[in-house]
């Protein structure tokens, strides 16, 4: 009897199927590596395993017993624990409290803190995370250490199945080694580990079985000894790398955006960067390196505590985003739902937001001009469905929402375009379209800053890459000829 079996698992949102019948089998002591591009359906699958979403059709068997986890609590009862990318620790509580929440040791009905800290210490030592102090407040730990506490928390109840969603995204050096050792140990203890990662090398190293997902389906199941990185990339993308990224042959003009010693509190320090007209510059950094904070500051959404910003060679001080927009800047934020769209408004109103005050006649919104401008954009960016202008933007797929956000800024005809993780949660076809658009804009003289935590993308779609580490620029590379390892080395402070 296999420990975990998924049979023809399907999931639809509002009638649109996003998971088309996934089959998956894993047994005790196995490590299933799941790989796939953004939007391949990995997250949906994980949520179903975790009980955070219910499947529309299909079957999930644990130990041969049919179970449909209807809630995270159900999943826990069946021995399935999931560690998400997002941090869920209570920042004001200590590591001990976070780990033992709901199961504190007691003495005369009160919590026995000494015993609790002991238990937490033993627990962390037991799984090899010796560098974490259980008495620390969780919020004071680095992002990497917090991620490790999350994993420890999942292991408190000794799950039979552990699902790790991009556990290594924020880890480096000895922390990463500790994680790998832990996965191997769990494997020996007969736990089934489901390991989702963008880093194919890791998956090839750890997994006993590799599952490749694309467009909501499993398109290949293989083992590390039967495949390699190139094949996996080809499977994930459905095309070769050369076909994904445009051939950048940039001819650069004068500086469009430059900073000098730009600093803001402990978010980032002494940033000197220059982006030329027609140039696409990548900015890579791990979570917590300050990349999004830098983007917001460049855009006037926050204020620098030191240094200067110049646009087109002229110094500027941005009090608000309005000032930055007036200077020709545009920002596509990382958090589409939180700061990219107004969910209840139509696609048309969302796209027209940046030009709302400019498109008026006699004090009223000029509906006809607005419609024309937006429809041109819907055509140009191929936002689907074609007649989406009057639909609420939330009804669109993630990729089409992102195109609409992009359209909103293209209407402003920016001179400097800042893209923060523009392809997160976006399907492959849209990614390719976004890269094309970026290339096209650059050829027309726009300066582009592409912030990304995707190594392949940050090298593939750009001319030059800056690497941010702990708020400072740790390195700079020409994209052509640079390797992902070089970029990663800078980002974790290990460059030769």
């Amino acid at each position, binding site marked *: 009897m296999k420990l975990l079996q998924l049979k023809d698992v399907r999931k639809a949102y509002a009638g649109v199927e996003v998971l088309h019948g996934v089959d998956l089998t894993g047994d005790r002591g196995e490590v299933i590596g799941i790989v796939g591009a953004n939007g391949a359906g990995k997250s949906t699958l994980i949520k179903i395993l975790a009980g955070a979403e219910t499947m529309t059709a299909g079957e999930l068997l644990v130990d041969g017993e049919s179970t449909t986890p209807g809630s995270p609590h159900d999943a826990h009862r069946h021995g399935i624990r999931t560690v998400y990318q997002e941090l869920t620790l209570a920042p004001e509580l200590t590591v001990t409290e976070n780990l033992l929440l709901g199961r504190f040791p007691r003495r005369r009905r009160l919590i026995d803190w000494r015993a609790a800290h002991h238990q937490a210490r033993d627990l962390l030592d037991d799984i090899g995370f010796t560098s974490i102090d259980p008495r620390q407040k969780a919020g004071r730990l680095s992002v990497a250490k917090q991620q490790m506490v999350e994993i420890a928390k999942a292991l408190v109840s000794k799950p039979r199945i552990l699902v790790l969603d991009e556990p290594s995204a924020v880890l480096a050096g000895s922390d990463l080694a500790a994680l790998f050792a832990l996965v191997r140990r769990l494997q020996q203890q007969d736990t089934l580990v489901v390991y989702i990662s963008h880093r194919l090398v890791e998956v090839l190293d750890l997994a006993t079985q590799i599952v490749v997902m694309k467009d909501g389906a499993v398109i290949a199941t293989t083992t590390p000894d039967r495949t390699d990185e190139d094949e996996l990339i080809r499977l994930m993308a459905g095309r070769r790398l050369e076909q994904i990224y445009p051939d950048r042959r940039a001819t650069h003009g004068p500086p469009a955006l430059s900073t000098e010693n730009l600093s803001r509190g402990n978010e980032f320090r002494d940033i000197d960067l220059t982006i030329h007209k027609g140039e696409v510059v990548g900015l890579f950094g791990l979570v917590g390196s300050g990349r999004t904070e830098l983007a917001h500051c460049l855009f006037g*959404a926050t204020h620098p505590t030191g240094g200067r910003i110049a646009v087109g060679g002229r110094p500027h001080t941005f009090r*608000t*985003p309005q000032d930055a927009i*007036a200077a020709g800047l545009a920002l596509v934020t990382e958090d589409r739902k939180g700061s990219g769209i*107004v969910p209840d*408004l139509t696609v048309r109103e969302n796209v027209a937001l940046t030009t709302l005050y400019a498109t*008026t006649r006699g004090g009223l919104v000029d509906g006809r001009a607005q419609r024309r401008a937006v429809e041109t954009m819907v055509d140009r960016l191929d936002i689907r469905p074609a007649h989406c202008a009057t639909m609420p933007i939330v009804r669109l797929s993630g990729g089409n929402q992102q195109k609409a956000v992009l359209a909103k800024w293209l209407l402003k005809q920016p001179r400097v375009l800042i893209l923060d993780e523009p392809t997160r949660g976006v399907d492959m076809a849209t990614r390719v379209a976004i890269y094309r658009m970026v290339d096209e804009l650059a050829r027309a003289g726009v300066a582009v800053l592409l912030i990304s935590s995707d190594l392949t993308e940050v090298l593939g779609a750009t001319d030059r890459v800056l690497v941010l580490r702990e708020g400072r620029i740790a390195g700079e590379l020409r994209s052509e000829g640079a390797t992902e390892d070089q970029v990663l080395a800078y980002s974790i402070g290990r460059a030769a």
Partner: protein
Amino acid sequence: MTLTKVDERTTPAARIQLTIAHAAIALVVLVLAIAAVTTDAFLTQTNLTNLLKQMVTTGLLAYGMLVVILTGGIDLSVGSVVAFAGILTAGLSSGLPLPVAMLVGIASGILFGLINGVLVARFDLAPFVVTLAALTTIRGLAFVYSDVPIAPEEESFFWLGSAMLGPIPLTTVIMLAVFVAGGVFLSRTPAGRSIVAIGGNAETVRLAGISVRKHVLLAYTISGFCAGLAGVILASRVGIAQPSVGVAFELDAIAACVIGGASLAGGKGSALATLGGVLVLALINNLLNLYNVQSFWQQVLKGLIIIAVILVHRASRRRT
């Protein structure tokens, strides 16, 4: 191409949503029909005129409230502003020309709205707390100004509240004008659309280069204006200004918005549907009066109807 376009607009889901979004208006028609059929007193000139006059205060307050609610805020101070604007106008009318006194009364409402707006938008304080504080402060100021009712003797003071335009009270026309202008403001002007968008997602709007502060400030100022106007009209209609008038008026205004489908989280609501909500409330009150139902039971019924309407709205949203 054209075919898909037609399909898009008339999907069953869209049609259902359209119908149910106007649940309040449908309810009005229903209540009206019941009223007309079952009582003789309802369709009399006196009763209808009364009904039209009585809904003016709630109507004006509800429009202002709607604008604030659309931003995701709330204005609890409007009842107190009604009292202050009324008593100030009545007090000043003995020394100043009446139109000037009335304008000063309305201006006081604008000023209070502006102060609320500055505290919410500039100092980033919670709207509930700011306007709760304003509620008690402004009520206190009304009593400080005069702790006894002021009853101006000049005939002209009553004119605004009693004038008729044909069969319709002037004040009702003023209220309808506010809703028409206000409806156009919300649906057709950049400022109105910005206010709706802010309630949907303020950070997106801010990063699109639109000042959230200015628009939030504007919303509270509009609410203050509406409350000031309502206060002046109410004092003129009753013929006497009392510092204690208008207690809990804000609740009726909020109820009207909610019955009209506005979301207290912001970003959803329309002027027309809110007017429908105002009508529903006015009709319920009027009808229960005609049936001689105890006012305590009126409150109970009003509460139950609010819950029922919200449940209908919710069901319609979930379906789509």
